[in-house]
């Protein structure tokens, strides 16, 4: 017994120690993680974002260096450091400092978080000299966008810091990373951003770096972002934005042969440089809160309207395809027609015998109403009739997202028999009931890009390519879906008579007098009714001015849709703008200067002020002031630092790429 005690204790104790070790080393996983937090520091190497060029190789977006002040809260000794000096260096308040520290500590006391993002070079230089005084703070260099042009904000989108949701969802991003939002920055994020490099660095208990972890076995090298060439014609885009100054609306221009978007204008617009740097978030909020002018709302892609008269082109094409009319089918117009008891559709044409040709260029409601009724009523089963029509119309890419390469969009709406089953349950409706569709009212909704695509399809006599905004990504073949020809259900032969009608829109019809000498333009005016809900009541507002066109008639180079909110009828605003855009694109210069001047200077501001009484500040007016102020401020600061007076150098801070 006495002999057995010591061996027994030895064995029992050793077993207990082994059990504890087994628990520590095998069962409890938490120590591995703790050890990594302890001893391994992850360093990121952010590659420069890809540059963006226009279709002719003009540089649109470059980069400028930017500096984030990062903080590791546990290393900050707030009671020892000179907070006052720190705050005055960065031009922040002490309450801001404490708030930020609290937030950072809440995120993690051990991990770095962004204390102050996007300092420019000058702010950085001033801070850099003193950074040794402030333990726990360091500077992370990133690259910010440097816009070479002052247009295209809606096309480009912007870059911003990732939020927590994105970090949770996408393991690539960590807090403080930048990500593209909206426009091409969002849809081509993975190409533009490249691949950040990761370095695992061993650190010791004093947080000093003592070398790479496992000789860099797990490290990755950063990959440069890809440069992207847009299909956008920079000059055309700029011109479009100029034409739309003081008007609200959108312009979408497409090259019919390829589906390349030449211009995508949304008005009102703003300088893309507003969404860069420390003021980004403030500016963005201001733009975002402007619920009247909605400068962030991309009207070219998002605005759904009843398309109005341009839709008549489709009505005619479907009817021809279905064989319910031919070119000579005639209807008589008495400034409108009565299609059902007590129902009368007004018409502004000259009246008389209408056939396809003059029906189009005079935009005769009576003619198209009758054509539509015939189309729907061709089959005894009207539901079937509607679905046949609907199928033809949808083959133009309507009623759905088109699959273009921008992150936002709207479906628009093309009704089917289901729609009417819902609207008229148990009612024996027919073509007359839904005749408004014939002239692009009723249940039909389209976005400007869909209108432009419709024009491209007509210009191509029956096919289109999915519109897209990116022409080339270095080393990448364009996505197959942009190289696939979508053929409509309308035979090629039916397009010619319609096109010849559209050609005469300029010569004899609703756009008479807008034409350009030597360019054969085919177009169609439109006027879309629109309503606003005021205090729960539907109030009819001034019509939107719409125009669609393509040119030249043979071998078309551009298809375009323009709409101007509350711009009365098509010829007044949208028509001239369309013509100017076409001339600009095809000839690079404008011959009718007076005409151009009227459009550039024309303003609908008073009209908008009347229609939409403002509850908020005019964000754009305010921002334009700010841009001016900040430029002056920057120049002053530069002067004081360098003692010389270079002008507007901020633009030249561009990081030069090899």
């Amino acid at each position, binding site marked *: 017994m006495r002999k057995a005690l010591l061996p027994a204790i030895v064995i029992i104790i050793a077993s207990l*120690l082994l059990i504890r070790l087994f628990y520590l080393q095998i069962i409890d996983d938490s120590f591995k993680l703790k050890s990594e937090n*302890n001893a391994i520091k992850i360093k990121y190497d952010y590659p420069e974002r890809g540059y963006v060029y226009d279709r002719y190789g003009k540089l649109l977006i470059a980069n400028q260096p930017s500096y984030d002040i990062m903080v590791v809260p546990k290393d900050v000794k707030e009671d020892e450091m000179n907070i006052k000096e720190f705050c005055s260096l960065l031009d922040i308040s002490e309450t801001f400092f404490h708030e930020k520290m609290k937030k950072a500590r809440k995120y993690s006391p051990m991990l770095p978080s962004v204390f102050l993002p996007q300092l420019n070079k000058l702010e950085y230089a001033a801070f850099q000299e003193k950074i040794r005084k402030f333990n726990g703070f360091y500077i992370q260099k990133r690259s910010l966008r440097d816009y070479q042009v002052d247009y295209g904000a809606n096309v480009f989108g912007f870059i911003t810091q990732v939020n927590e949701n994105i970090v949770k969802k996408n393991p690539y991003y960590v807090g403080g990373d930048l990500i593209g939002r909206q426009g091409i920055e969002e849809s081509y994020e993975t190409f533009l951003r490249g691949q950040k490099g990761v370095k695992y660095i061993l650190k010791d208990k004093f947080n000093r770096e003592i070398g790479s972890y496992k000789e860099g076995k797990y490290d990755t090298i950063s990959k440069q972002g890809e440069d992207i060439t847009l299909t956008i014609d920079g000059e055309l885009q700029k011109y479009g934005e100029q034409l739309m100054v003081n008007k609200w609306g959108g312009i979408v221009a497409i090259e019919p042969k390829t589906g390349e978007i030449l211009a995508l204008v949304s008005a009102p617009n703003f300088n893309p440089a507003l969404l860069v740097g420390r003021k980004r978030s403030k500016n963005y909020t201001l733009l975002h809160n402007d619920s009247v002018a909605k400068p962030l709302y991309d009207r070219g892609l998002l605005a759904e309207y009843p398309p109005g008269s341009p839709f008549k082109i489709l009505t005619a094409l479907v009817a021809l395809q279905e064989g319910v009319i031919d070119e000579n089918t005639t209807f008589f117009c008495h400034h409108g027609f009565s299609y059902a008891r007590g129902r009368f559709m007004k018409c502004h044409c000259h009246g008389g015998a209408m056939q396809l040709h003059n029906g189009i260029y005079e935009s005769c409601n009576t003619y198209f109403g009758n054509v539509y009724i015939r189309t729907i009523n061709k089959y005894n089963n009207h539901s079937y009739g509607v679905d046949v029509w609907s199928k033809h119309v949808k083959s133009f890419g309507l009623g759905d997202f088109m699959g273009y390469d921008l992150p936002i969009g709207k479906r628009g709406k093309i009704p089917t028999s289901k729609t009417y089953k819902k609207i008229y349950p148990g009612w024996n409706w027919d073509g007359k009931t839904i005749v408004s569709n014939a002239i692009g009212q009723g249940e039909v909704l389209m976005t400007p890009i869909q209108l432009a695509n419709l024009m491209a399809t007509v210009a191509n006599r029956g096919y289109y390519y999915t519109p897209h905004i990116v022409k080339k990504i270095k080393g990448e073949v364009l996505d197959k879906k942009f190289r696939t020809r979508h053929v409509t259900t309308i035979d090629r032969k039916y397009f010619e008579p319609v096109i010849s009608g559209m050609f005469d829109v300029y010569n004899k019809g609703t756009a008479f007098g807008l034409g350009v000498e030597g360019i054969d333009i085919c177009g169609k005016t439109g006027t879309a009714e629109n309503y606003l809900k005021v205090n729960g009541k539907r109030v009819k507002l001034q019509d939107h001015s719409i125009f669609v066109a393509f040119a030249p008639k043979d071998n078309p180079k551009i298809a375009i849709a323009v709409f101007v909110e509350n711009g009365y009828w098509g010829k007044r605003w949208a028509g001239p703008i369309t013509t100017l855009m076409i001339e600009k694109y095809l000839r690079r210069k404008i011959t009718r200067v007076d005409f151009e001047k009227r459009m550039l200077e024309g303003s609908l501001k008073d009209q908008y002020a009347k229609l939409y009484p403002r509850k908020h500040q005019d964000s754009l007016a305010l921002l334009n002031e700010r841009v001016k102020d900040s430029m002056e401020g920057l120049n002053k600061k530069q002067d004081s630092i360098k003692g010389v007076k270079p002008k507007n150098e901020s633009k030249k801070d561009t990081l030069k790429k090899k």
Partner: protein
Amino acid sequence: MRHQSVTSNIDWISVVIYITLVIMGWLNIYSSSLSSIAGETSIFDFTQIYGKQFLFILFSIPIIFVILSVEAKFYDKYAIVIFAFSLLSLAGLFVVGKTIAGQRCWYGIGSFTLQPSEFAKVATALALSKYLSDVQVNLKDFNRQIQALMVIFLPVLLILPQPDPGSALIYSVFFIVLYREGLPGWYLLTGFIAIVLFVLTLATNSPFIVIGITTVVLVINYFRSRIVDRNIIASVLLLLIVTGFSFSVNYVFNHVFKQHHRDRFNILLGKEVDMKGIGYNTNQSEIAIGSGGWFGKGYLEGTQTKGGFVPEQHTDYIFTTVGEEWGFVGSVFVIGLFVALILRIIYLAERQKTKFSRVYGYCVASILFIHFFVNIAMVIGVFPTIGVPLPFFSYGGSGLWGFTILLFVFLKMDANKVNEW
């Protein structure tokens, strides 16, 4: 011829385990001290601690040869002299001792330092063996018990005020030796119960719970015993003692202990842990070991080790390097070596022909065991932080030589047993 007999009779199993432990210790010291140094230097760089440890290991070889060549009888004969000399060396610290980190337990000789308490263990073991091997000594006798305890407590009295509680704690293990040689069992039982009550009082933080539990146990015991054995007075007395003990533990803990002592216990009991301050050592050493997994991060690849997060890693916390870099498998191997060595020594001790060498062998096994247990238990966070080296493993000349002498004196006795009759 004599030399021949030593090599043929020495217990090679113990020698091989000893060499393995020493070399593993050295490799781990090398790894643990590479931290923060850019570029790896030679393991033989004598300006670094691993270089010094190599020197200590080299110097162990002549020590071993001297021990093995001395007559075995020498240790028996001069045990008391050695003990006296050792006590003197401990007492001398108060006069010419060198203070390092608040502890006055070193003699400084040039840049080297010697820690006499490491050698005092050997001397105490020899003295105790000498005393117990006297045929007249019977540990059932109260006076003999007092005398035996005095042998143990003399060095403790000199070591405690240095202060070196770690080394002092080691001497408690001699009770196991005394028990083996006839000390009544209630000494150990009382000690064991005292420890249980101590931990229980601290864990519950209320003497009343402990008293309550004790009362229940005593009442059950009272009614379960035969009527004749029932002794109400003894039970009440026992309860009173427990009550007093429990209250005094509570009092001592809260009023006599210093805060850092309290903290060391609180960490173990899972109370108030400040991982940056007092809990740092234990926390970091648990992280290092815990992150090792099955097979560890590989030799010289431990991130905790390289980062120097574990304090005193080359001395008392050397086992964290094993845990981190060699994983559970490596830890099992090292623990296995220690258990094998200790059990082997117990086995050898039991087959000794003289009482002197048997008691000494038992002392060796016990001393190795208590170091092994306290050190590893502390490193893995189940024992309060207390400075006790891991035998043969931890950095330090005095420690290595002390344990080498301790072990090889016994191996010499064991090798010599055939010549004794």
